[in-house]
């Protein structure tokens, strides 16, 4: 009986970890879907900045694990020493901040083609290698780090030409977090989110 219980729980432990069910094909299709959505956003006229931002926000909410990303960016110590209300507030403000960044960096559609090249499974994550090719610009390499969260795949980081979103923002926030803490960072991001829309490349 004792052996049965042990076996049952080992079996349960193994299958209850959602990361084990992520396979290369699923991760690939998930990223192809993101690419298609991103191309659709590029095709939205640049004058309709509100629509671009809304679509981008939907994409982030649907495909990215923003809660995990925001916590990793803050780091273990800050997360440990902050209240859940503060973390929730930061996650909301941070999401708007990311929308602001990408809506200002995403250019216009000029025949870009999104392609997924290969996928690797390492530990509990899938790494999907993709490229954006265009007749006007050099090829851009993007690597997506995907993790299954509650049976749903989510992006937990992306690396554009070797530059990780997580690490860049972590470094960007490091000094202000050291100097004035999470409240100071929230205040600063809130202020920055209010600045008027920036000029889009190619506008």
């Amino acid at each position, binding site marked *: 009986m004792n052996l049965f219980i042990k076996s049952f729980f080992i079996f349960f432990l193994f299958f209850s970890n959602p990361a084990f069910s992520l396979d290369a094909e699923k991760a690939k299709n998930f990223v192809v879907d993101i690419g298609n959505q991103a191309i659709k956003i590029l095709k939205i006229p640049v004058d309709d900045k509100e629509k671009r931002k809304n679509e981008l926000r939907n994409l982030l909410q649907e495909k990215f694990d923003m809660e995990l990303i925001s916590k990793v960016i803050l780091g273990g110590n800050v997360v440990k020493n902050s209240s859940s209300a503060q973390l929730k507030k930061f996650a909301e403000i941070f999401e708007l901040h990311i929308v602001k960044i990408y809506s*200002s960096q995403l250019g216009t559609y000029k025949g870009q083609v999104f392609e997924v090249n290969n996928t690797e499974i390492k530990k509990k994550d899938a790494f999907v290698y993709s490229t954006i090719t265009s007749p006007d610009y050099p090829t851009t390499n993007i690597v997506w780090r995907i993790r299954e969260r509650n049976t749903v795949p989510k992006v937990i980081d992306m690396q554009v030409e070797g530059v990780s979103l997580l690490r860049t923002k972590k470094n960007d926030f490091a000094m202000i977090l050291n100097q004035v803490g999470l409240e100071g960072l929230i205040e600063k991001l809130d202020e920055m989110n209010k600045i008027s829309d920036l000029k889009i490349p190619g506008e």
Partner: protein
Amino acid sequence: MLKCNLKVFIKILVLVTLVFITNCSVNNSNIVDKTPEAEDPWENLNRGTFAFNQTFDKYLLAPLAKGYRFVFPAEIRTGVRNFLSNLSEPWSSINSALQGDLKNTGNTLARFVINSTIGILGIFDVATEIGFEKQKEDFGQTLAIHGVGPGPYLVLPFLGPSTVRDALGKITSLYADPVTLALERNNKDEWIWIGMALKGIDFREQNLEKIDNLNATSVDFYATLRSLYLERRSSMIRNQNTDETDPFQDFDVE
């Protein structure tokens, strides 16, 4: 009997807790962050140079880049970019050879020959169109391939982000780049500086909105640029064997 049931209950409780912790580890503070700290022991000095570069950019480089975009059509700007880029191919070829990358040594040489002839002095990038993709290699990358570490982060006046190793690479190119040497030998030193200035203006023009937007959306623009530079360089060096390297090898979330 009661004792036995209690034991089983405790075991079950421990296992359930274990399962719960395993699955929810990312929802609490158990975040393992292996991000290496950027080596920036000269941060104060660097921030000073960065502020100087920002002023230089605000009052001279960005206005020049805007003027360049306004006066010259995109086709001419592309031609100038191609011409300048073509002049860097021989140095790229030498560095590829020093790195033991024979494929890119041939590739860069072929690019130089094709673009200098069919591409009319490099104004047209015919080589890319027929399948010779550009892969720039510099002396900083060569040093890295041979095991020289980046050393501290360094902001150079006018030139921007670098490291001690990459700055050494830049200085070496001034004395070893065949195009630079040819210009020096023919007493045309001023063209070295004109070429550098043009490259700077062209780069800024290409990235006018991107850099300005990055500045506007960064809490600490200095740290953002440092992060971008160091990661990009590291990726350029690791590109020698992209498929075998974990792109997130230094950064883990558990």
